[in-house]
């Protein structure tokens, strides 16, 4: 590359493989914008990277995912080809990387892609699907979480069987859990949820494993949400590592 600082001229491969650190990437993109020569190289190397991805053995996702995506799409307006609407960035435990703009590969610059908005839509679709759940909290509580601007949604497998679906909003400091296929426990045992901040686990309510429940107490930024099995009535501290957990 002519007229480029050496460390930038050699960064094209790292850039298309998404290996640059955020600051380097921003710097590279500024240079890229002014260098047709570099853009040409990035375009070719980006296509090469795609070939690597296409060479991987494909994996069929489950029907459930297809249903979720089609449901979410049905509830989601599209962005037109003109000005993108800026949405507030979510407050995240990892703001440095999660909200970076997409790289300016040749087709990407016009896509202002915002994870927060996507997460909100997935959360909303979920909330709509579950709003009639028998254990739904009062006064639209769970729905409020699902439709928050920074709503997140995670589906996680539970050790011992079943799936847990957790929605949370850092902005609201709240989260909602629902379960699918959790094993029924003996009468003297219960599922219990926790907010775990690294040093301590705060009890966030016992859960009978059916319907939907909003966790008790406030969720702080960076909390991990975990679930354990405890004596009926709940415990003040978890007796084991979580059988399911998600970092928020």
């Amino acid at each position, binding site marked *: 590359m002519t007229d480029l600082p050496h*460390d930038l001229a050699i960064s094209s491969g790292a850039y298309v493989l998404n*290996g*640059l650190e955020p600051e380097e990437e921003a710097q590279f993109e500024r240079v890229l914008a002014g260098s047709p020569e570099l853009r040409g190289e990035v375009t070719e190397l980006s296509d090469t990277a795609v070939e690597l991805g296409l060479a991987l053995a494909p994996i069929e996702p489950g029907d459930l*995912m297809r249903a979720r995506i089609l449901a979410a799409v049905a509830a989601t307006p599209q*962005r037109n080809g003109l000005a993108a609407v800026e949405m507030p960035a979510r407050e995240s435990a990892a703001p440095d990387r999660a909200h970076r703009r997409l*790289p300016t590969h040749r087709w990407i610059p016009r896509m202002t892609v915002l994870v927060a908005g996507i997460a909100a839509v997935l959360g909303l679709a979920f909330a709509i699907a579950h709003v009639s759940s028998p254990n739904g909290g009062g006064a639209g509580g769970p729905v409020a979480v699902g439709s928050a601007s920074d709503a997140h949604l995670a589906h996680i*497998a539970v050790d011992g069987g079943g799936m847990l679906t957790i929605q949370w909003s850092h902005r609201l400091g709240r989260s909602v859990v629902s379960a699918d296929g959790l094993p029924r426990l003996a009468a003297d045992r219960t599922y219990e949820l926790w907010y775990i901040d690294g040093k301590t686990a705060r009890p966030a309510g016992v859960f009978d494993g059916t319907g939907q429940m909003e966790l008790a107490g406030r969720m702080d930024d960076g909390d991990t949400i975990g679930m354990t099995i405890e004596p009926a009535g709940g415990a003040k501290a978890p007796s084991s590592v979580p059988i399911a957990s998600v970092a928020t």
Partner: protein
Amino acid sequence: MLTFPDVDGGTVAPLEDLLREVGEGDRRSFAELYDRTAHRVYGLVRRLLVDPSQSEEVTQEVYLEIWQNAGRYDASRGGAIAWMMTLAHRRAVDRIRSSQASRDRDLRVGTRDWEPDIDVVAERVEVSLEMGRVSAALDRLTAVQREAVTLTYFGGRSNSEVAALLHIPLGTVKTRLRDGLIRLRDELGVAL
């Protein structure tokens, strides 16, 4: 332009046409686009994230982004599958970095037990590729180029991580990635 194999052998709409229709709000085209590409997108995301539930979340995010932004796709600038796979790789890497950030934080405060196992780098270097052409092209890289490209693309590792893992300077990582990709490009004859 990359083409997508037509498994049925019949005439099917090119993915670029489907994506354009998706951009016009056609949900039936979106479903077809999903059915014809999800195994590719999910395969890539799974390779990077390993964890099935996280991979499903990210794949959902990718397809919603495709839905929302299809109107901005410009076929003259590249193939549909390339556009989608580029987006998927980016989102998967974002997820890796963001969960790494929280994992690093939790490890600092000593709650290792709460976190899932961290992948050991060595096991991620070997990748099974189904397409002989790409696999053969990778074989023509030097071992150190192949290692750097594999760790970065298939392992989702940042340059700094690769440098630390291999005990080499950052600039060396970048050089290996660029030289390796250029070699791959030439071997594969990637057309513009």
